[in-house]
C-alpha cells in the first residue's frame, strides 16, 4: 500500500528531524531595505521556459481542454462560443495571479518589520529548504502547508523569498477580494483567487483546473494550497479537501509530467494570532468580514508577543511512487486527455488516501511547545491546579509525549519550573497564576450581566486553551482511542477491544485525522505505543493494563472525554429535542442552545459541546453512520433522525453498552 512508502516508520520516535534556523536573526542584524532589494535568482524547474502572468492567461484560454468545455457549454446553453469565451476570460481575470517581483520586495520589507515585532523567532529547517530546492529543480512542486492563521501564506512566500527559492502561486479564497487593496497586493505577490463554491459551474471548474494544471505542467512556479481548505479554528487538522489535490495529480496520472512532488509543510505558532477570534467563531459569533480597515484595526496585535513560530518543510513525496502499483495509468489512454472526466473510483480513493497521509505528515512535523502540554492539564482541571503539581505533571507528560514521537521543542538546560512559568506568562491572556494556583482566566468576567454572557466568556477562554491542547492530540490519539476502548469494552480480550477501538475510530473519523481503511494499522500502532511506554502488556489474545497503566490510561481517556461527552450531547439533543422539521441550517444553533441549557443547569461541564466544530463533525459522523439522513425539500434540507440508532450510539459512547456487533450492525 502506498501509505507504507510515506509512513513506514513503525516507531515514530525513531523519526529523524532536521534542525532549525531562526530567519529573523539576520533580519534583526541587517538592513531590511537591502534585504528587500537583494539579488533574487532562484533555481528554476529544469528546462523551464519562463512565462509572464499575461502569457499564462493566453495559454490557458487557448488550451484544448478549456476550448472543449467552452464549446460544450455554448452548445448546452445556446450562448455563442464568443460569449462563453468572454465569460471564461472574465473568470480567469478574476482568478489569475499577477505576481511581480516589486510587490514581493515590498512585502519582504514590510513583513520583515511585522514579523520582527510579532515573533521572537521564525524557525525554519534549512535541510527541508535544500530538499525543496532540489525538488523544484527536478519536478513540478506542490506546497501543502498546514493552515492555522492568515499569516501562513505570507510567511511561506516570505521564507521562499528569503532562501532564494521560486516563489509559489497560492490558491486563496475569494473572501480576500472584499478588501480591494489588500486583495490586489496579494494577487501581485502570487495569490490567485477561487470562489468558495462553484459546485455545478462547469466553465468555472474548467478555467480553474486548467489554470492550475498549466502552471504545474510547465513548472512555472510551485503551486501552494491548503489541504485543509480553510484555517482550522481548533488547531486540530481538518479533514482534507480533495478538489485541488485531484487537479494537481492529474498531470502525472495523464503522463503530462514525469512526476509531481508534494511537499507537506508544518507551520506551528506558539501563540496563534487569531486565538480568541476563533473561539468566538466556534461559539457562533460570525467571523468578521475581511476588510482592509479591520486589518488596520488589528494593529493592536502588533503590540503583543506571539512567541516563536516554526516552519518545517517535510520530505517531498513523489506522486509517482505513491501511485506505483495503485493506479493503472493506461486507463487514461482511450480518451483524449483534454476532455474532462470524472476520476475513477481507483483514482478517487488514491487521492483520498494520499490527502490523509499528507495531513498526517503535516501533523507529525508540527513543533509542539511546552505550553500545549500545560494546556492539556488545564483542560482536564478546569477548576485550576497547583503550580507545582502542574510542573510535575507537565514533565511526566513531556516524557510520555516524547516516547510517542512528539516533535517537542522543550528548552534544554532550563529548569522545568522556569519552562512552565515562561509558558504561562506568554499566555497570560488565558491563564492566571495566583497564590500558586493556576487557572483559566475569564476575560470580561467582571460585570457580566447574565449567566449566559458569563458562560460565553468562560467558553471563549476554554476553547482558546483547548486549541492548544488540540495541537498535541494527534500524538496521543491512537493510544487514547485504545485506552477508551479498553475502558468501554471492560474486558481484556483483544478482539473485543479491537471492535470497540474500531467503533470509536469510526465515530471520530470526522473529528480527527484517521486514514480511511487503516483501522488495523492504527490499532497496532496504539498497542505498540502503549506497550512501549509500559502502560499495557500485549498478549496473544489480550490487552492487559499494567501498574503504570493505571495512571496513563485514565489520563488518555480524559483527553478524549470532552469529545465523547460532546458527541453524547449532540445525540441527546437529537433524541430529546429534535422534531421532524429540524433543518440543517438550524442544527448548530439548536444544539448550542441545548448545550448552553445543560451547562447552566450544571449537568454539563465540558465546553467542547458548545463548539460548532464538534457539532458539525458529530453531525457528519451521524450522517455517515446513517443515524441521521438529509432530506431535501423544496427550499431547505431537513434532517431525519433515526432515534433508535442515535440513542444506542449515545449509550455506547457513554459506556452503557459495550460495542457489540448488533449495535454496530444497527448503525
Amino acid at each position, binding site marked *: 500500500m502506498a501509505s507504507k512508502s510515506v509512513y513506514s516508520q513503525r516507531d515514530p520516535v525513531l523519526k529523524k528531524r532536521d534542525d532549525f534556523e531562526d530567519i529573523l536573526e539576520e533580519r534583526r542584524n541587517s538592513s531590511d531595505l537591502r534585504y528587500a532589494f537583494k539579488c533574487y535568482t532562484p533555481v528554476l524547474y529544469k528546462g523551464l521556459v519562463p512565462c509572464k502572468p499575461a502569457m499564462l492567461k493566453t495559454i490557458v484560454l487557448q488550451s484544448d481542454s478549456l476550448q472543449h468545455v467552452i464549446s460544450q457549454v455554448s452548445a448546452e446553453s445556446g450562448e455563442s462560443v464568443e460569449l462563453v469565451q468572454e465569460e471564461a476570460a472574465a473568470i480567469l481575470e478574476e482568478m489569475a495571479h499577477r505576481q511581480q517581483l516589486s510587490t514581493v520586495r515590498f512585502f519582504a520589507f514590510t513583513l520583515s518589520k511585522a514579523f520582527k515585532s510579532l515573533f521572537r523567532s521564525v524557525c525554519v529547517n534549512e535541510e527541508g529548504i535544500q530538499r525543496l530546492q532540489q525538488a523544484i529543480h527536478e519536478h513540478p512542486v506542490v506546497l501543502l502547508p498546514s493552515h492555522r492563521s492568515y499569516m501562513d501564506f505570507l510567511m511561506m512566500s516570505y521564507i521562499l523569498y528569503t532562501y532564494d527559492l521560486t516563489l509559489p502561486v497560492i490558491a486563496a479564497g475569494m473572501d480576500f477580494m472584499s478588501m480591494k487593496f489588500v486583495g490586489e497586493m496579494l494577487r501581485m505577490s502570487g495569490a490567485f483567487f477561487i470562489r468558495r463554491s462553484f459546485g455545478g459551474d462547469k466553465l468555472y471548474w474548467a478555467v480553474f483546473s486548467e489554470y492550475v494544471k498549466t502552471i504545474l505542467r510547465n513548472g512555472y512556479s510551485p503551486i501552494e494550497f491548503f489541504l485543509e481548505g480553510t484555517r482550522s479554528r481548533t488547531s486540530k487538522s481538518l479533514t482534507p479537501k480533495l478538489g485541488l489535490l485531484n487537479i494537481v495529480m492529474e498531470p502525472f496520472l495523464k*503522463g*503530462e509530467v*514525469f512526476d509531481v512532488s508534494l511537499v507537506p509543510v508544518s507551520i506551528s505558532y506558539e501563540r496563534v494570532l487569531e486565538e480568541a477570534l476563533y473561539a468566538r467563531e466556534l461559539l457562533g459569533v460570525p467571523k468578521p468580514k475581511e476588510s482592509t480597515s479591520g486589518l488596520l484595526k488589528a494593529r493592536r496585535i502588533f503590540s503583543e508577543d506571539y512567541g516563536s513560530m516554526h516552519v518545517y518543510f517535510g520530505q517531498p513525496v513523489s506522486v509517482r511512487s505513491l501511485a506505483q502499483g495503485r493506479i493503472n*495509468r*493506461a486507463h*487514461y*489512454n482511450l480518451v*483524449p*486527455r483534454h476532455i474532462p472526466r470524472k476520476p475513477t473510483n481507483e483514482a478517487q480513493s488514491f487521492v483520498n488516501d494520499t490527502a490523509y497521509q499528507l495531513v498526517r505528515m503535516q501533523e507529525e512535523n508540527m513543533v509542539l511547545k511546552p505550553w500545549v502540554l500545560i494546556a492539556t492539564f488545564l483542560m482536564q482541571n478546569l477548576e485550576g491546579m497547583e503550580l507545582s503539581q502542574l510542573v510535575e505533571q507537565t514533565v511526566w507528560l513531556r516524557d510520555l509525549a516524547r516516547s510517542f514521537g512528539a516533535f517537542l521543542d522543550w528548552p534544554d538546560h532550563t529548569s522545568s519550573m522556569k519552562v512552565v512559568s515562561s509558558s504561562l506568562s506568554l499566555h497570560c491572556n488565558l491563564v492566571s497564576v495566583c497564590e500558586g494556583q493556576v487557572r483559566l482566566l475569564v476575560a470580561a468576567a467582571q460585570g457580566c450581566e447574565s449567566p449566559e454572557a458569563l458562560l460565553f466568556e468562560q467558553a471563549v477562554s476554554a476553547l482558546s486553551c483547548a486549541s492548544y491542547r488540540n495541537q498535541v492530540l494527534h500524538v496521543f490519539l491512537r493510544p487514547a482511542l485504545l485506552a477508551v476502548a479498553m475502558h468501554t469494552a471492560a474486558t481484556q480480550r483483544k478482539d473485543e477491544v479491537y471492535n470497540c477501538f474500531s467503533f470509536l475510530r469510526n465515530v471520530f473519523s470526522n473529528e480527527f485525522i484517521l486514514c480511511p481503511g487503516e483501522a488495523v494499522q492504527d490499532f497496532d500502532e496504539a498497542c505498540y505505543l502503549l506497550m512501549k511506554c509500559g502502560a499495557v502488556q500485549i498478549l496473544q489474545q489480550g490487552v492487559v493494563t499494567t501498574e503504570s497503566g493505571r495512571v496513563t490510561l485514565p489520563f488518555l481517556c480524559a483527553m478524549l472525554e470532552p469529545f465523547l461527552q460532546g458527541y453524547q450531547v449532540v445525540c441527546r439533543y437529537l433524541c430529546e429535542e429534535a422534531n421532524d422539521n429540524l433543518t440543517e441550517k438550524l442544527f448548530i444553533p439548536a444544539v448550542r442552545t441545548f448545550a448552553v441549557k445543560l451547562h447552566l443547569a450544571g449537568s454539563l461541564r465540558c465546553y467542547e459541546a458548545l463548539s460548532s466544530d464538534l457539532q458539525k463533525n458529530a453531525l457528519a459522523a451521524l450522517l455517515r453512520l446513517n443515524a441521521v439522513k438529509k432530506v431535501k425539500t423544496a427550499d431547505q434540507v431537513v434532517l431525519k433522525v433515526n432515534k433508535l440508532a442515535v440513542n444506542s450510539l449515545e449509550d455506547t459512547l457513554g459506556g452503557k453498552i459495550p460495542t457489540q456487533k448488533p449495535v454496530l450492525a444497527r448503525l
Partner: protein
Amino acid sequence: MASNGKSSERQRTAQQRLRIIAGHLRKPEEADHTEIAAQECKAESSRTNPEKPNSMPKRRQEIMKWNGWGYSDSRFLFNKKGQAEFTGKRYRLSGLIMPSLKDWFEGTFGANLQHKSPAAPALNAGVVPPPNLNEVFVEELKATGIPFSQDADDRMFRAHGHCLHEIFALREGHFGRCPDMVVWPNCHNDVVKIVELACKHNVCLMPYGGGTSVSSALECPPEETRSIVSLDTSQMNRILWIDEKNLTAHVEAGIIGQDLERLLNESGYCTGHEPDSMEFSSLGGWVATRASGMKKNIYGNIEDLVVHIKMVTPRGVIEKSCQGPRMSTGPDVHHFILGSEGTLGVVTEVTMKIRPIPEYQKYGSVVFPNFQQGVACLREVAKQRCAPASIRLMDNEQFKFGHALKPQVSSIFTSFLDGLKKFYITKFKGFDQDQLCVATLLFEGDREKVLQHEKQVYDIAAKFGGLAAGEDNGQRGYMLTFVIAYLRDLGMDYYVIGESFETSVPWDRVLDLCRNVKERIVRECKEKGVQFPPLSTCRVTQTYDVGACVYFYFAFNYRGLSDPLNVYLQVEHAAREEILANGGSLSHHHGVGKLRKEWMQESVSSVGLGMLRSVKEYVDPDNIFGNRNLL
C-alpha cells in the same frame, strides 16, 4: 510491352538503384549479378543448385558472428591508438577511423578503454548440451532427402535472436536450451513433408528465418521436453515469378531482404520494404512479425505489401484462392498469419507487390531548435500527408552520437560537425547545442516530383524553426542505421550493455511518452545502482495519420554491478510499463515473442486473447509449433 529503349532505360535505373542500395549497404564492387530463379521447386531434382542467389549459407557461422551482430569480418574496435575503427570491406564505413567515438564513448558512459569485458572466445561445442533426438522422426526425415544437421554450432546459432540478454549470455558462455537439430527445406513441398513428420512423431518445430528477432521469439522454451527442430528457411530463397502486368512477385519466404531487393532490382523493380535488419531478415520473418520498413510511407508496411500468403500448418496448407487486391470475405485470414510469430505454421511462399525502381532518390536533413519543434513539424507533415519515403527525427543525444561516428577522412562524409560549425556561425545562431535535434529525410520518385516534394517539406519545417542541413547529413544518418547494430558489440567489450525498443503512440502523446520513458530509464538505472547515468535517447522513426513510431535506445556502464543482466532486464521492463502507461503500444513492429507476452492480455483484452488462442487450438492442437510466442 516495354520497348528496347524502355528496357534499357529500366536497365539504367536498375543500375542506379543498385548503386543506391549499395550506398547504404555495401561497397559497390561487391554487388554480384545473379539470375532470378523463376522456376518451380527443384528440391527433388538438384539439391545443389549452382545458380542459387544465396547470400546465406547453411552454415551461417562461416560468414556471421556466432555471438554478436552481422558479418564476422565487420566489427568496431578501438585500435592501439585508442581510435575507433570499423573493420572489413563491406560497408562504406569499413576501414575508416572515427576519431571522436572514443571521447563520446568514455564521456557518455563513464567507460574506460582500460576496462575490458571481452567475450568468451570461440564456441566450444562441448558446452552445448547434446541433442534430444526423436529417432523415428530423424529416420523418416532422412528418407525424404531434406538436409539437416545435429552439429552443436548449427544448433547453437539458431537458439537465439538478437536481444541483449541472448547475446550477453553467449558472450559469457552461458547456453540455455537449444534446438536439437536444424533442417533446411528447399521449397514448399519440403516444408509440407517436415510438418507432416513432426505431427506424426510429435516433434516441436520452430521456424527460423533471418534470426534477427528481438523479442525472444527464437528462444527455445526451457520447459519443452520434446525434440525441438529448428526449421531454417534460408534455402527457400527464390523469386518464383514476376508478374509485370499486376506488379507482383511470387517469392519463397526464406529469401532475405538484401537478396530480394537485389534480384528485383535486376529486373528494374523493388518492393521498397527496407527494415533496418534487411541484410539478414527474411520475407517469412517479416510476415510472421508484422515488420515495418523505413520507406513504408511510399510502399507500406508488410501487411500492405503482401497479396497472397501460403502457410503450412499442422491442419494443412492455408492460402486464398485468388490474388484480388481486396476482399470482403469475413475477417482477413492473412491477419491470422501476419504476426503469428511462428506459432501456427511456416510461411513458405508470398506474393508481394513490386514497384518500378524510382527514377530519383534524394536525401536531406533538417535541424530543429529542439525536439518539441521537431515533433510538431513531423506531425504537420503527417497531417498534410506529404511525408517523404522516410522521415526520422533524432533527439539531441542521438544527434550528438551521430557526431561521434563521423569518420576521419572522406569526401562524401563532409563532416556533420564541421558543416554545423559553419552553420552555427551563419545560420544556427541561437540554437542551443544541447537542445537541437535533427530530422533525416529520404525522397523518392521522379525527379521533378521529388524536388517539388522536397520544397514542400522544407517549407513546413521552416515554420517550426527547422533549417535545412544538407543531403550528406541525411544520407549518413541512414547509412548509420545499418552499422549501429555492430556498435552494441563494441560496447559489450567495455562493460556497456544496451538495447533498443520501439512503440507506436498517438501524436498528442509523443512528447510526453518520450520524456517520461527516457526519464524512467534514467531513474530506474539510478535506483538499481548503475554508477553512471545511462544513455537514454529516442527518435521518431515513422509517421502515420494518427500517430508515430518511436524508437528508444538505452545503454549503460555496468561496472560494479553484480548482476548486470538482471538490472538491465528490470530497467527494460520498467520502460515498457512506462510506455504502456503513457498510451504507447506493446510493439509497433518488433512483435511480442516471449519477451512481451505478459502484457498481451492487457493489450488486446482477454476476449481478444481468447480469439487468438482458439485459432491456435484449431490450427495446431498438439502445439507442434511450440515456440510459445505471443500467447
